[in-house]
């Protein structure tokens, strides 16, 4: 995400003039996440690939809809965040995803389906789906449930150039067969994965998950309502990474990092992400 520069730009969004620094995206100008424009592949710490196309808006003079998460504002732009075309394309994207992958752990999907009248079941029982593939459990730290993957590219970008620079996973294949994969789909222990978990941090759909969370969900003991989240500092090495400890029943069940930390930008290494066990080997 490029830093907005100082020059001010005025545009019109849904009938109201808005003045923002140049370099701002339409989504940011409209109020960012939570402003009413749905987003899926847009994360806090990754330059969006704008692959999901759920945040599309109408810009006067543009032949096609434009992705609000990525398009920088221009002077005099006239933007409509809701219109027949906008609503139609959002509905279709929600249906396309809802009919091909498992969105059960994706935030807001039910409310958006209702708002845009999306009915993922209308493609029939025979509609091609990726939601029936088995969960990949090949190590004790995290699992990969690609039945839930919407191909937002965030894990690939977090593992790659934007943060971790490990490049252990890439998009492989093409079209509907595209999938996040190691080389030849080798298991994580056979890959160069360093288990930083920075892919889990950015995954918006629960496709990538701590093994501890996966096990508790499977056992029916995962209970977010009774979890606390406490921010503290990692005890390994001298970098001083910020941790958000998710605690249930006096036990750490998941470790994330605040995306607004100037040190981590939401990233950790394997020790910070998974090395908490020593604090809870309890009698």
């Amino acid at each position: 995400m490029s830093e907005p520069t100082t020059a001010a730009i005025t545009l019109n969004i849904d009938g109201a003039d808005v003045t923002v620094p140049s370099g701002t995206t339409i989504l940011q100008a409209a109020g960012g996440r939570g402003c009413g424009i749905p987003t899926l592949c847009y994360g806090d710490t990754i330059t969006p690939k704008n692959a999901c196309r759920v945040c599309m808006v109408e810009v006067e003079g543009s032949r096609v809809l434009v992705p609000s998460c990525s398009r920088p504002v221009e002077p005099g732009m006239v933007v409509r965040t809701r219109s027949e075309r906008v609503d139609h394309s959002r509905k279709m994207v929600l249906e396309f995803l809802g009919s091909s992958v498992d969105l059960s752990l994706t935030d807001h999907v039910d409310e958006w389906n209702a708002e845009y009248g999306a009915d993922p079941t209308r493609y029939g029982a025979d509609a091609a789906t990726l939601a029936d593939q088995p969960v990949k459990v090949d190590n004790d730290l995290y699992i990969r449930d690609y039945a839930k993957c919407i191909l937002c590219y965030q894990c690939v970008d977090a593992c790659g150039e934007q943060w971790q620079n490990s490049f252990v996973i890439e998009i492989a294949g093409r079209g509907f067969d595209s999938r996040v994969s190691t080389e030849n789909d080798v298991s994580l222990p056979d890959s160069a994965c360093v288990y930083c978990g920075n892919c889990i941090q950015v995954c918006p759909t629960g496709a990538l998950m701590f093994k501890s969370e996966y096990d508790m969900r499977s056992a029916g003991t995962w209970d977010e309502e009774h979890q606390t989240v406490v921010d503290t500092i990692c005890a390994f090495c001298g970098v001083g990474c910020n941790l958000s400890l998710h605690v249930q029943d006096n036990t750490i069940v998941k470790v994330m990092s605040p995306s607004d930390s100037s040190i981590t930008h939401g990233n950790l290494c394997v020790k910070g992400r998974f090395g908490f066990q020593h604090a809870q080997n309890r009698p």
Partner: protein
Amino acid sequence: MDLKTRAAPPTDAEREAVESVLGPTPERSLRDVRGGHALKAKRHLLLPTLHAVNDRVGWISQEAIDHIAERLDASPAEVYGVASFYALFSMTERPAHQVHVCVDLACRANGALDEHDLPPGAHPSPCLGVCEQAPAAFVIDAGHVAQGVVAGHVTPVQIATWTAGATPSSADQPFRATAVPQAGDPSLVLLRRAGRIDPLSLDAYLGDGGFTALARAREVGPEGVIARVKEAGLTGRGGAAFPTAVKWDAVRTQAATPHYLVCNADESEPGTFKDRTLIENDPYALIEAMSIAALAIGATEAFIYLRGEYPRAEATLHHALAECRARGLLGHVGSEGFDISLRRGAGAYICGEETAIFNSIEGFRGEPRNKPPFPFQVGLFGKPTVVNNVETLYNVPGIVLHDGPANRRLFCVSGAVRVPGVYEVELGVTLGGLIDLAGGMREGSELQAVLLGGAAGGFAGPADLDLPLTPDATRAEGLTLGSGVVMVHDQHVDLVDQLRRIAAFFRDESCGQCVPCRVGTVRQEEAVERLAHGIDGTADGTVDLALLRDIGQAMKDASICGLGQTAANAIESAVVRLGVFR
């Protein structure tokens, strides 16, 4: 990146193939290793390296992937991600001898075997770009000297022979100029050398006025060239019809350097074969045209991105480029001069998209980029870049030498006409006039429909014979000239089958990056299949026809690139204009 070395080394053949592109494998240094940016700068050699291994061995093993990754400071997952993007590569073991049989639109209409009827060992292929000789097949023999032959007018018996291990001879390849029925006509401009001049002889080209346009361009300078191109009204022939002079001037005036020129010869639109025809018959003219374009935009490096299914065009260009370098017509001297690199695609329609082509050349997955920024600002290697279609460039030498409008167009006429081929006409000829030029309908054929512009185009009907083939007139009818495809279907052609193939084509060729196209092309094909089999559940197909409209609208509005935006066009036009499925 983090490396995890696997124990197994590549085979000698794999190592040699990699070295043929990347040079000798460096010795392990114990004290001093150069890496980082210097290694990463070689990433653009990934696609040629993958080709080298695939050509040599027939497939790309895990050991080869690891080795390539190490040589390029990329990760094995990245190399695999790129390799698995292209249909011509395999990461599972397969024989060195491969038979790819075209099952696409023109060949289907001309009696090609259906995908499901192919003998074991034959791979179904999208359009091979020899539609004038349909049906076609492409036989590859990997090895020390890899060989690829595209044969026309193939029979099931031939296919059976080839899958049994035989290789077609060069006699099975159509004669170069066969694709140009007008060959020798003195009024031709773009095709004037076809069949008249030996395409392998630089002397013949020079003797026919070759490189005089470049000399003239040097006299008038970049701005003079652009002024002439502007005056001639040249527009892009790839489909978008954007004014060429505007594109060139935009790059010429960009402060960022260097500037790049890319010739888009990834001709993959089903029914299109004009780039192949031009290159095979007159390769030096493309080199001259690119030299002029590079002069105009201030580029010293250019790329020709040629589709992987054109082995003879590739060999022709290789030869021509080498000849030009040998005579000093191409090549760098220090930082001066101009040279052209030839890049071969590997079976991905999407790489003809003007930004996907950058990613493919740079050694990444051939996924389109978002626009803006536009190629003239941020293009190849992040620098200002002009992408021109082959036919567009063939207009350039004539424009530089002579006054007058750029009003010649090429059409790829295939299907139920007497003499299919590439036709050069003045802009404004009607559809009926073009069919007449191609000898009219075949004996016993009656016109049922014409696919205009390829799979991304639309269907015209018998009522449209008076339609002038101009961008404006076709647009007014909701149609497009696209890449100049005029595929003429007679009463024997099963239009529903054609639509099924079009739907399958887009499902196969979607890059998968954006949701509307990745899933939309699948849902579109499913609806077309249900309609084709009458299992919509409603007597008149209203549910699935409505679904097709919904899907098409979303793909058109919300897809990242032109592939998704046009993936519903032909099906929609068949339903609306021809009443298919009604």
